[in-house]
């Protein structure tokens, strides 16, 4: 096995379902030991990409290798080295948590004693020891996800795929999942996770690929992506909603760019180039116009704004 090479490589993957193009020349390289986020809206091709990389779906064309093994020709080798957490908790509802983990361990050809020992370890790691003897149908959503993740880690796979791992979880469950992913990454597991939530990618991933229309349209660290739309942003929160149009006009004049207005937050937001000059000038202009500002602040753009910016550009080009 190639230990120094990238954990995941995809080259020009293509997949269509009838008239729908799911992947349209998908390229990806994930270095071993890193957390990589695949970010995109519904239908961008995230799940198709993960299904191909985990040997569940055959691509129409293109190649993909996991830890050096080809997903089509060496599927069994790949399966020994990956864990997959899909959008549903793919565990047996009738079996207990412990029975699930032993079953999946045995199906990966662990001996009975090893499978049982490994199950106990994982139950303890994911705080499921107490519930281990109860059927999974009595578990909460968060517990199911933890069991699902545990079931994906039985062979301590070097590469873990998480397909929208926090969909449908409450904030507490989501934080638990994030902590688990961070611990795995710290221990050296390569993680590829898909998400529609920008803060999730920002929180977990060292590197992000933005996916739209089955292709990667932007790539980089979260900071790089934020820098891609160039500027910091200047936010003005007005005291009175009625002042919003006037404030937007002032902001536009100062920044030389169209401002975005968010009425429910009483906020006007605009990208600026020269941070301090813009700030000073804006405060003065607002004062001249007689608009009472509650807050004026400079900030880095959020990934939401990055994403809208990138996909909008895609539509125009």
């Amino acid at each position, binding site marked *: 096995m190639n230990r120094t090479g990238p954990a995941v490589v995809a080259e020009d993957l293509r997949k269509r379902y009838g008239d729908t193009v799911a992947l349209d020349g998908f390229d990806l390289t994930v270095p071993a030991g890193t957390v990589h986020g695949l970010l995109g809206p519904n239908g961008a091709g995230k799940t198709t990409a993960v299904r191909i990389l985990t040997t569940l779906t055959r691509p129409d064309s293109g190649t993909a290798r996991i830890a050096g093994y080809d997903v089509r020709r060496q599927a069994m080798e790949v399966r020994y080295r990956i864990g997959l957490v899909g959008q549903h*908790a*793919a565990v047996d509802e009738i079996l207990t948590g412990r029975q699930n983990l032993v079953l999946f361990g045995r199906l990966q050809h662990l001996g009975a004693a090893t499978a049982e020992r490994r199950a106990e370890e994982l139950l303890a790691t994911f705080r499921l020891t107490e519930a281990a003897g109860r059927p999974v149908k009595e578990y909460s959503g968060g517990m199911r996800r933890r069991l699902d993740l545990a079931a994906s880690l039985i062979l301590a796979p070097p590469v873990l795929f998480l397909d929208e791992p926090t969909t449908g979880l409450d904030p507490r469950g989501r934080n638990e999942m994030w902590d688990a992913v961070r611990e795995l990454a710290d221990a050296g597991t390569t993680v590829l996770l898909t998400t529609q939530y920008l803060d999730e990618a920002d929180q977990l991933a060292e590197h992000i690929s933005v996916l739209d229309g089955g292709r990667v349209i932007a790539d980089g660290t979260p900071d790089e992506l934020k820098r891609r739309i160039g500027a910091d942003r200047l936010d003005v929160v007005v005291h009175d909603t009625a002042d919003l149009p006037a404030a937007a006009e002032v902001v536009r004049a100062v920044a030389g760019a169209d401002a975005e207005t968010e009425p429910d937050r009483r906020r006007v937001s605009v990208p600026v180039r020269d941070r301090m000059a813009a700030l000073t000038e804006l405060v003065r202009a607002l004062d001249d116009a007689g608009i009472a500002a509650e807050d004026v602040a400079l900030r880095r753009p959020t990934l939401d704004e990055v994403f809208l910016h990138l996909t909008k550009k895609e539509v125009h080009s």
Partner: protein
Amino acid sequence: MSTPTFVVPGTPRERLRWAVADGWMMTRRDLMHWANQPGLVVAGLLFPVMVMLMFGYLFGGAMSAPGGNYREFLVPGVLALSMVFGIEATFTAISTDVARGVTDRFRSLPMASSAVVVGRSAADLLNAVLTLAALVAAGLAIGWRWHGGLAAAFAAFGLLLLLRLAMLWMGIYLGLVLRSAESVMALQILVWPLGFLSNAFVPPGTMPGWLGTAVEWNPLSATVAATRELFGNPAWAGESWPAQYPLLTALLWPALFIAVFAPLSIRRYRRLSR
């Protein structure tokens, strides 16, 4: 944990060992289901017994069977019908796994791809044997006997299990196609008329001519007629081909179902990777 050794089987012998080991694990999964839900297993066994008692005693008094004893006539009918009912269990198990993503988990594991089907077949056939045992015990209790010797009786049970195997493949196929466990309702609506449009409860000779002929061609009727013959239980004489050759028909119908639905199921299973 100690690093496990990744052995991907290369020779046919090693592949067979994987297939057997993984198929057995999948069978054990179902046995664990039974152990976790003993109430459901018992209810599943009691239901056909209840049907037998209901027809034997509530309707039986008003029924006249060829050769006299209606309960002797009825038992082979319920035995075969219970094999047809089995399709619901197969269907539910397969479609639930597909819908919950459990099938995908199995497919992402380094295991023999035949294990899902092998485990399903072994567990369902084992359940069918238990069902037949419960029905035979209840049948003996209400006065049913076989008169044709032990070998003939075993041949009859063989035909019944063959019918269950045919239903198994059909259930696997439908489970993969419909992918929703709720569709079992639709299946029940189809299974019941199939049960009544047969010779299980009444002789086709008492029905309007065209309907009687259709009923004689029902695959279920073939197995019922054949088992009646093998058990030496009262039967009726029919004019149609299947009524003339019940044993042959009881082999041909299930064989045809398996020949159609086994390849279709395997194709459908492979298409999950599309």
